[in-house]
Structure formats: structure tokens, C-alpha cells
């Protein structure tokens, strides 16, 4: 059984993936760490970033946080606002 999730992409991660969002299947119940590993495997350039975080429903998430269907997921490369 798998869990189809959509991931929003910004900044350099959007350019690495070549799209502002991507959809992927994660074994259920999936966790943030699995999502990151999956993405870094498919897009090795993500390993070259200074940091790469995941936000779940607008909050920074730890690697062991579960991902549920309908969660809003985003990749957060190093921020540089201001």
C-alpha cells in the first residue's frame, strides 16, 4: 500500500527538479526521512545543497515525522530572504 504525495519546490530545488511541484509514491506510513532519501536518490544534485529541510503543513519537520495523505509538503533549501 502506498501513499501518493505532492511536494512543492522552491528556489534551487525547483530548478534541480525542473518543476515547481512533483508527485511521488511513498510506502505508507511514510516518514519525512524516507521522502528526503527518495528525492536525493532521484535528484543527486540535492545532495550538494548546504541544507535541505522538509516542511509539513507549513512547519519544519523532523526526519521521523509521519506523512499523511493530504499533508502539504514542501522542500526547503537554504533560505536567503531579507
Amino acid at each position, binding site marked *: 500500500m502506498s501513499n501518493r504525495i505532492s511536494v512543492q519546490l522552491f*528556489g534551487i530545488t*525547483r530548478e534541480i527538479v525542473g518543476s515547481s511541484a512533483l508527485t511521488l509514491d511513498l510506502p505508507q506510513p511514510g516518514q519525512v526521512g524516507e521522502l528526503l532519501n527518495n528525492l536525493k536518490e532521484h535528484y543527486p544534485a540535492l545532495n550538494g545543497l548546504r541544507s535541505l529541510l522538509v516542511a509539513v503543513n507549513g*512547519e519544519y519537520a523532523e526526519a521521523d515525522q509521519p506523512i499523511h495523505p493530504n499533508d502539504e509538503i*514542501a522542500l526547503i533549501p537554504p*533560505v536567503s*530572504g*531579507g
Partner: protein
Amino acid sequence: MVSITTDPIDMNAAYRYVSTDSAGAITFFFGTVRDSTNERAVERLEYEAYDRMALTKMQEIAAEACRRWDVRKYTIIHRKGNLAIGDIAVLIAVATPHRADAFDACRYLIDTLKQQVPIWKKEIFEDGQVWVDAHP
């Protein structure tokens, strides 16, 4: 009040918003587009935001500043899109009864915004582009 906008930032509106009779001190911090980075000439900047989360984070850090200091009014306005040299990318305004709080809170807000708020900028040079701070 926090906002993200594609329009030029209006400092007069920000001043009107934060000014209040109980304030004796108001600080403004403007982050502006500098013409060079490490002596390399910058042509322009592009800012991108994860709006929903950026607004939430801006509100969180503002709430923390209000807990730490006697902030009577504040505003954080961040611009996104294409910015030219000299444009204002961010304006943080803080009104407090006494000046030490106005300086401390304003500095905390910009320092923490730069660490936590999901906004990204790309520097466009004559011969290339770089997402700022993306790589080690």
C-alpha cells in the same frame, strides 16, 4: 502585521501603521538590493517565497519579539519578484516606548527572518546566476 507583496514597499504606509502615542522610539530596517556581492557586480535579484509558510513564520517570530520586548506595533513587509539595484526587499518597523527595545526587537526580527522564513533570492550577474547561500 506581516505581508509579502510584489509591489514596491511603501515606507510612509508602514510608518503610519506602526506609529502610536505610547511609542517614543521607532526603528526601521530596510534590506536593499546592493550593486555587488564579493566584489562581483549584481544586475538584479529575483525573490521567491513559499507564501503560506513564510507568512506563518513571520507571524511566529513577530509573536516571539512581542514576548521578549515591549513592542507596541510592528510590521514586516517582504517583497518578491524581480528587484533592481536600490529596491527595498524587506522593511521591518518596530514601535516601542523606549529605544533599546526598538533596536533589539528590530534586529532580532531581521536576523531570525533570514534564518527561518522560507524566502529565497537569486543573484543575477552579467555572466550567470546564483541562488544565495544554497551551497556550502
